[in-house]
């Protein structure tokens, strides 16, 4: 048998194998989907059910021995995509806030470049999140967040007031990504969020420095990752309505 024939046979085997794997993936997706729907009906936006279904065995293994034999999924699961879609709306709401800040003429020439740069970063984040969320991505600013932050910026009477709102928003975004990391199952989504969260945190430090905030206000001991620590609750700012 020559190499060409052998390689052709190997390719055929590989294709058959991949077809079988697709069926397994279908099972996984269907199971996660079912859990996602049930969980959503129970009122949990972040789809703890899916996490329990897929991560449950991993969690059990890890708690017992510190090791796992099941690799976490790379691609975002349906629950992840739901959260990513929401995260994109958060980024676009931040863009809208910076748009309002730049349009409000309250910012000095020294600060305008930073605001424009941060706005650009949020656009980049929204695009990256949208790329991972795929067709589910809505590409809209979160209406509730725009409603909550937009008028504050528009009605601000000083640069410090505008920057204070941006400082709070950036800190809230960093905390929200901490919250998200605790529920995202796919490692691609987790890695993306982990590359965005520190940038939001750095934005907050730069803004805090300009505002003359104390070091402790700029740099907490641990980044908060719950709503008590300032994370935005997705359930309080749904994309619908």
């Amino acid at each position, binding site marked *: 048998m020559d190499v060409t024939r*052998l390689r052709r046979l190997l390719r055929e085997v590989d294709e058959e194998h991949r077809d079988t794997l697709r069926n397994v993936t279908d099972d996984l997706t269907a199971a996660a989907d079912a859990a996602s729907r049930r969980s959503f009906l129970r009122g949990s936006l972040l789809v703890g059910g899916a996490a329990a*279904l*897929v991560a449950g065995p991993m969690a059990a293994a890890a708690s017992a021995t510190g090791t796992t034999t099941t690799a976490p999924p790379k691609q975002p699961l349906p629950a992840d995509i739901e959260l990513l879609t929401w995260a994109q709306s958060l980024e676009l709401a931040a863009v809208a806030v910076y748009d309002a800040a730049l349009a409000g003429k309250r910012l000095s020439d*020294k600060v305008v470049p930073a605001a424009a740069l941060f706005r650009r970063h949020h656009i*980049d984040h929204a695009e990256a999140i949208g790329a991972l969320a795929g067709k589910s991505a809505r590409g809209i600013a979160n209406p509730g967040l725009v409603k909550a932050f937009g008028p504050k910026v528009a009605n601000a009477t000083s640069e410090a007031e505008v920057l204070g709102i941006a400082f709070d928003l950036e800190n809230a975004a960093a905390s929200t990504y901490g919250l998200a990391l605790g529920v995202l199952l796919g490692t691609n989504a987790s890695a993306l969020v982990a590359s965005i969260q520190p940038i939001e945190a750095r934005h907050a*430090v730069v803004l805090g420095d300009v505002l003359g905030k104390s070091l402790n206000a700029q*740099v907490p001991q*641990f980044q908060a990752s719950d709503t008590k620590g300032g994370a935005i609750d997705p359930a309080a700012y749904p994309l619908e309505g």
Partner: protein
Amino acid sequence: MDISRDELNRERRAIDQANTEAMRSHASVLAAAFEDDDAASADDKATLLLGGLARRRFLTIGGFSVATAAVLAACGKKAAPEAVPQAGQTPVTTALVTRNYNDVVLLRTAASLERNAIAAYGAAATFLSGATKAAAETFREHHEAHAVALDDQTKKLGGEPFAKANPVVDERVIQPALKLVQTDVDALWLAHALEEVAAHTYQTVVPLLSLPSLRQAIMSIGSVEARHATVLAKVLGAALAPTGVGIPAAGPSTVAPATTTAPASGVAAPPLYLLPGSFEPVAASLVHLSGQTLSVAPLGPNSFIY
């Protein structure tokens, strides 16, 4: 046969690995579905169990088996090649050690890196004063809290905390760098580089950790290291140039303006950023000490604490 045994073995291993991974995932779903009565309906469970034997898949498996058999038949042993006469002793080859890392290894490594930072801040303190020294002391305390948190998490997973600094980082980065630290600016450069390395290392670790809760925990620290780095870049920029690095400027590039003040030796310092760009990078950090620029990479498997 016209194909080398090594190549054939590589192909076979790749197929086997893909199959093993698929089976693990399937097993997890089955376990989850059947351990919790509410996790899946009876129909779902039946599909999960019997789906693999549905008619379409039966045909698929059939084709798969036939093709596999064909390859295996083709790969059967042939007559041994003609031996080449050999004189003297055959060299002894030792296989490389395979080291697998898991959550505990990653947490122990992170804790060791925190202790590197604690040691570096301790050594740097002698060169600092005033508000800068106070900030460094605050950051050192943060690292101590991080190390304790990582130790606790390691214990929860059944592992043994690693209560020392990372020996690879200490030997190859900290000790050589400390020999070059002569001024407050040098001390700030070293601290800044270590904070950047920590932030990048934790980001690297995120997709390697198996559980979302651990990814959340590691980035609750990683984001703080990034904040430390930004503060230190600001302070360092102010020390390097009277105007400092200022606040980031917008432009075609998404990075902050660089400070390229030339030191007395005439070798320009590397760029210094408050913000590395739109996304936190996974890249080496530069540290400029006594006119020399060193590169410090994020930790990888060679410096993990197994």
